[in-house]
Each structure stands twice: as C-alpha cells, then as structure tokens.
C-alpha cells in the first residue's frame, strides 16, 4: 500500500511545518553578523540593546503584516493598510490633543474607522465583485484624498501616558514587542484553531469547494478584511505613540502596503490563497529588520538595503516554486 499514501515520519512533518523563511532568516543573520564583525564593531551579536531593537523595528510592520496574512490566505489582498495607518496616526493625535482623558475616545474612534474601512473593502470585493487589488486601491485613494484635504502636517499630540505603548518596558522587554507577540499568537490561534480560521483557508483555497461545503464565503472574506484594517489601526497607534504626533505620510512613507504583502509572501503564504500562516510572515518581517539593522551598523546608504530586500524577496519566492515543482514531480 505504499502506492496509496506518501506518508512521512513525525519528525519530517515537524521540520516541514517550520516555514522555510527561517532558514533565510538564520542565513541573513549569520551573514550579517560576520559582515558586522569584519567591517564594524560586531555589536549585532554582542550588544543586547541592538538585538532588542531588531524586534522593536519589527513591531509596526509585524502587526499589520499579520492582518495582511489573513486577507492573502483568503485569496484577497489589502492595499489600503498604509492609508489606514496614516488616518489612525493623524486622528489619534488630533483627538487626543495631549489630554490623557481623551485616549479611550481616540482609540474607539480610530477602531471604528478600521472596522468601517475593512467592511467597505470586504463589501466591495464580495458584493460588487470588484477585484481586491482594485477595490482596496480605490479605498486607498479615497482615504488619501480625505486625509490630504484635511491635514497637511503633524496635527495635535499624544499625552505622555500614551507613549508607554511605544517606549515602555516591562522588565527588559519593550511593551510594543509584547503587543506584537500577542498579535502574532492571536493570529496563529485564530487561523489554526478556530472555525473562522478554517473557513478562511477553505475560502481562499477554493471558493467553489467552500460554497459547496456550505460556507458563507462572503462573510468570511469581509471579516478577514476587517481584521486586516484593525491591525493597520494598531500599527498606526504604535507609530503615533513613537512619533508623539501623527502626520498624513507615516503610512505611505513606511511602504506598509507593499512591505506587508512582501513579508507575507516571503513567509510562505501563497498569493493565490489557502496556504500559509503568521509564523512565516513574522519570519519575513524579522528578516527585513535584520537587514535594516545591519545596514545601520555598517553605516551604508540606507537606500541600498532595498537592493538586498529585492534580491531576498525574489530568491525566497523562487525557492518555494522550485520546491513545490519538485514535490509535484
């Protein structure tokens, strides 16, 4: 019966479950450390502060990339996250105006913006049957128009207490890193252990199969888009907490739209949907942070790092397609 089931041992299966992006991450980190030692002071390995900083750098992109992973697993995509981040940052500091009492109001307000944006994205995609790329590009332009018409520069400020999110520490661990960890764990749990997660994989894997199994695929996709927008809101809150005031360009300048998609795909989530998860995505995000840190250490022109990022995106994704071809053969 060996012809019937190509079974693997438990160990092999465990190894296969580790997203291959971590191999790249280790290689990049090791290569970076060697470069750092030979060309600079080698602090990437010796200085815990710099290592912690790798994680702090990952927070903004990491949180929103978890949401992007959700929509991409559902075979959709969300380009509007960068503008949701900007709107959140600007509105938060505008509403707070340095007043600690207004923190809950501001958070509630921007969360509502997130829910509405995700809902609108989801409805346009599922009910009007507009391609997700175009639909979220449309909402991006709408949000950008509203934002740029209303705010030109940094507006308002946040109270001291709200800086805790961006700068606070619990023992040696930054609060923001704990938030990121919580988001990743929650994302993993939802995808791997809840009905919604299972249905999202089904919807993204094959929408016809999902419908025939009685899934309400529209609802699943709409929820995924709301999740994506809410993670963008959380990233916006983190950024405004770091910057102390929001500006309209924080989202687009951080390229959170394309980078969240890139890290998701590097992490092994298929753009076609139905496959992947947040652990891979976070591996991709960490790799981007390692590259950033390395270039900082070496004092190289930061624009050069995009070259390395580009090479890594292509290599990583190419290695997956070669791998899956070999498996198919």
């Amino acid at each position, binding site marked *: 019966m060996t012809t019937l089931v190509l079974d693997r041992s438990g160990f092999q299966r465990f190894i296969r479950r580790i997203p291959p992006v971590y191999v790249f991450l280790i290689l990049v980190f090791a290569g970076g450390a060697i470069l750092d030692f030979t060309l600079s002071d080698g602090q990437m390995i010796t200085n815990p502060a710099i290592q912690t900083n790798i994680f702090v750098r990952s927070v903004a992109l990491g949180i929103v990339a978890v949401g992007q992973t959700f929509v991409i697993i559902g075979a959709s995509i969300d380009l509007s996250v960068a503008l949701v981040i900007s709107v959140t940052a600007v509105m938060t500091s505008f509403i707070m105006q340095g007043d600690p009492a207004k923190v809950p109001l501001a958070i509630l307000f921007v969360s509502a913006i997130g829910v509405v944006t995700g809902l609108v994205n989801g409805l346009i995609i599922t009910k009007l049957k507009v391609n997700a790329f175009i639909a979220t590009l449309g909402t991006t332009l709408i949000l950008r128009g509203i934002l740029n018409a209303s705010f030109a520069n940094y507006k308002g400020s946040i109270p001291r207490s709200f800086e805790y999110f961006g700068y606070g520490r619990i023992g040696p661990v930054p609060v923001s890193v704990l938030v990121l960890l919580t988001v990743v764990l929650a994302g993993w749990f939802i995808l791997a252990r*809840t009905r919604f997660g299972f249905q999202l994989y089904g919807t993204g*894997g094959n929408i016809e199969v999902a419908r025939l199994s009685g899934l309400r695929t529209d609802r699943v996709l709409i929820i995924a888009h709301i999740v994506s927008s809410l993670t963008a809101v959380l990233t916006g809150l983190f950024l405004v907490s770091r910057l102390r005031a929001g500006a309209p360009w924080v989202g687009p300048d951080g390229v959170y739209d394309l980078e969240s998609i890139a890290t998701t795909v590097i992490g092994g989530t298929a753009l076609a949907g139905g496959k992947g998860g947040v652990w891979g995505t976070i591996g991709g995000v960490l790799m981007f942070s390692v590259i950033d840190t390395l270039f900082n250490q070496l004092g190289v022109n930061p624009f050069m790092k995009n070259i390395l990022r580009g090479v890594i995106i292509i290599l990583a994704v190419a290695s997956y397609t070669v791998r899956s071809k070999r498996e198919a053969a």
Partner: protein
Amino acid sequence: MTDGMKNPAEETKPGLEPLLEVRQITKRFPGVLALDAVSVKFYPGEVHAVVGENGAGKSTLMKIVAGAYVPDSGEIILQNQQVNFAHPVEAFAKGISIIYQEFNLLPDRSVAQNIFLGREPARFGIIDMPQLNKNTTSVLEELGVEKLISPTTLVSSLSVAAQQIVEIAKAISYDSKVLIMDEPTAALTSVEVKMLDDLVRRLKARGMAVIFISHRLGEVFDIADKITVLKDGQLVNTVNVKDASPADVVYMMVGRALDHYFPPLGSAQDFGEVVLQVREASNDFLRDVDLELRRGEIVGVAGLQGSGRTELAQALFGVVPFKTGAIEIRGQTQMVKSPYDAIRLGMGFVTEDRKAEGLCPKQPIRDNMLMTIRALQSLFGFILKDGVRKSRKLVPTLGTQVDVRTDSFDREAQFLSGGNQQKVVLTKWLASDAGIFIFDEPTRGIDVESKASIHDLIRGLTRQGVAVLMISSELSEIIGMSDRILVMRDGRIAGALPAQSREADIMLVATGHPGRNGSDRGVETRKE
C-alpha cells in the same frame, strides 16, 4: 417511465422502493437537446452505471440530479418526495453527493480539515482538535481505510486514489444516501481500481445508491448491478448486468445515422509521400506511439475520454513533448521540444479549447490571424511598419480563403460565432504556411451549418497537399472525414481501421472489448 413500458430490470427488486427517481427529465442547451424525457430509477444498495458516448447526456443528467443544473421539465423524486434543487448545496443537504473528475478538495489542508470543512466540532468557535481527528478516524474506519489515511495528512501528499477515498469519506460524513461518481477510475491504477471496487461494495452494504459514469465497460461489468445507456440525450435502456453482454451495451451506445453531409473522402492519387512519421515515442501519458501521416490525407484519431487523444496532439506539437522515440518530418529526424519548434517545422495545431488556447478573444481578428507569422519573426523587428503593410494585404486574403463572416477585421474575436472563430484559428496556420495540421475537436460547440463548412475547409486543405491529423470524440465525424482511422486506448494506439469503418468496430477497440460483433470486418487489434 411511462406506465405501459415494463422494464425487465425493475422486476428483479420486487417490493423495493427506488431511492431516487428521475422522471421525464428534459434539458435543452442553446442548439442542443441534451436530455430528452429521460426516466431512470435508482435503488438503494445498488450500483448503477450510466454509459454512453461523449455528448450522450450522462454528465448533464448527473449534474441535474446533483443540483448543478435545473431541468427544463421533469421531476426528481427522492424517497417518494419531489425535490427541486436550485444549487448543489441543496442536493448535498438532502443526501446527494457528487464526486467530479476534477477533485473538489483543498490540497493544502489536512484530510480532517477537508472532510469537516464548515462543520468542524467547535466550542465558542474554537475547534476541538482531538474531536475533529476522532470524527475523521471514525469516518475512515467506516470505509476500512483508517490504516491507510491519517486525519492529519495533507491532501496534496495523497495519491489520486487516496484523494478519491477522502472525497467518498466526505460524502459519507454527510450521511449521503446517493453517491454519484463521474469517471472514478479514469486516473487509477488497477490495484487502486480494485480498492475502489471494495469500497463501493461497502457503500452498497450501507444501503446507498451508487451511480457512476464510466467509459470503461470492463469495470462497469465488474462493479455495477445495472446499466443505463444514453444516446444523443435519449434513454436507450436500463438493463441488469447479468442479462447483458458488453457487446450488447456497445451496440446500444452506437448505431445511428450520420447526421450531416461530409465532403468526399480522398482517393489513392491524392495521397503523397509521408510527411510525418513517429516511431516508438513515449512520454508520461503516451506509450509506444507509431504513426505515419501522408500528404493529402486525413487521419482520424478516435478514442474515449482519457485515452490520450489530446495528449498525442500535444506531444506532436511540442506542448508536452515525447521523451523517447523519434519524429521524422519530411524524411528528416527532428526534435520537437516546444510549439515554436513545431511551427517552424510547418505544423499547425487547432486546439480543442478555442477560447483558452486558440484565440485571444479580446484582440482584433486581424491580430489573431497574424499571430503565428509574428511568432516566427524576429522579436526585435519593427512590427508596426512591417505588420501593418502585411496585414493590409494578407488579412483580407485569408479572410476570403476561409470565408470569415465579419464586417471588419478590427472587431474583437470574441464577438464572432463559434464557427467563425474556428475559421480565424485556421487562418493563423494558413498564414504560417503549415503543411501538417493537427485538429483537436475541430467542430466542438459549433452549429451544424458551420460544421459542414469547417469540414469542407479541412478537406480543401488536403487537396492543397496538407496532411491532417484529426482528433474527434464524435464518431460520425471520424467516420465521415477520415481516410484512415487510429483508435487510442490507455495512451496507446490500440488499433488502425480503414476508412468508413463502423461505429461499433471503433467502439470495440476503444473500450477494449473485441467482441463478437466487430472482428469480422478487419479490426486490427494490437497485442498488449
């Protein structure tokens, strides 16, 4: 079934109510009467095969039962109640499951996740993983396959047969009463067919009605209790397996008059030298293919679905090339490793799926016609200057040559009728001066009038010295057009027949049942 007609098959189950019955089902598609007042009864604990030629209406009938199509008239009776399905989900909920040829599983999810998709055991939305695996194991146990398939295995790492079992397990987990399988054995090895056979017996023992569509009469006679034969959308008969022989069933499947005029066949003086010769060529789908094609002749390739007809065309044209063996074109050994090679060597391929492979529907007719010429030109030439001048002269010539009916060659190809689209595809190859034409289903989905003009065009090509290999699932077309007939089965050329052979003879070679009806007319069946 009308009251007066007493069917011998029904008498064998006295007192037993049919589980599912279709009455006077009629379904019309544009230009085709797909089903014409078909009535069949399906009993519990019985395996019921539905057979017929391509286009006989088997799949349409099954899709109606499964809720994928709505019939124009007629009734579906499930356990004495009339049912109307607007969507497959409704049929599924009522206990009718269908397993299509293309699998409906999620490859990147586990067996358990597939079987219980949308019905996962959960509390407050959180999946109870141990329970999910336990439920899956018990479903697999019911089929006796729990040792072969683990609930946590990814579906993509299962073999085709195991995936099929997972689909059956999914159907059982819904407590289906009727299980429909469309060509379940098409992709299975003989060991796996045996397993499926055992599985089907288990389903029978559960009191399910198993319906399966198949082309392979051998398996039909092994597994089925009853056989329903459809032909041209009409019910021929329902018979008990033990009362019928494969030859009887083949006779019921074929034997109709040619339905339209074909141009006269070629004669000996029309045929010239061998332009294409293939020797002992094989790839993953084809084994030991030998064939010869002469100038001026049409060689028809018949065979059942999955017999390797299209794969043969794709191999010759370099789409999925042969791995071993030799191809000689005009006496010279050639490598055909890609369509580019084939086009350069003067081959043309009119594909089966016009919309996906033959035309760029959103481009103007003009550009479609000139596509192959441009493919042969240097990539760095200036298409603008050269292309415009060429197209001004060439396009109208080509258009009149095949009689494309359009007011403008700048119209997008998608707006043409099927017949006219096929003519545009033809001009691509006329423009590249191809000397060897391969047609795969040249008249599928084309109205009768255009069919005749396409047939005339193909015959006209041979008079200009072109060699034609024509693949068709319509036997009348094969017989009406071919100067020689090759019959494929299981990836081999199973037999060669002379012009104007009978449908029954072709079917016997194609199904692998050289029976008492055929062999007297010179059927040359190869030894395997």
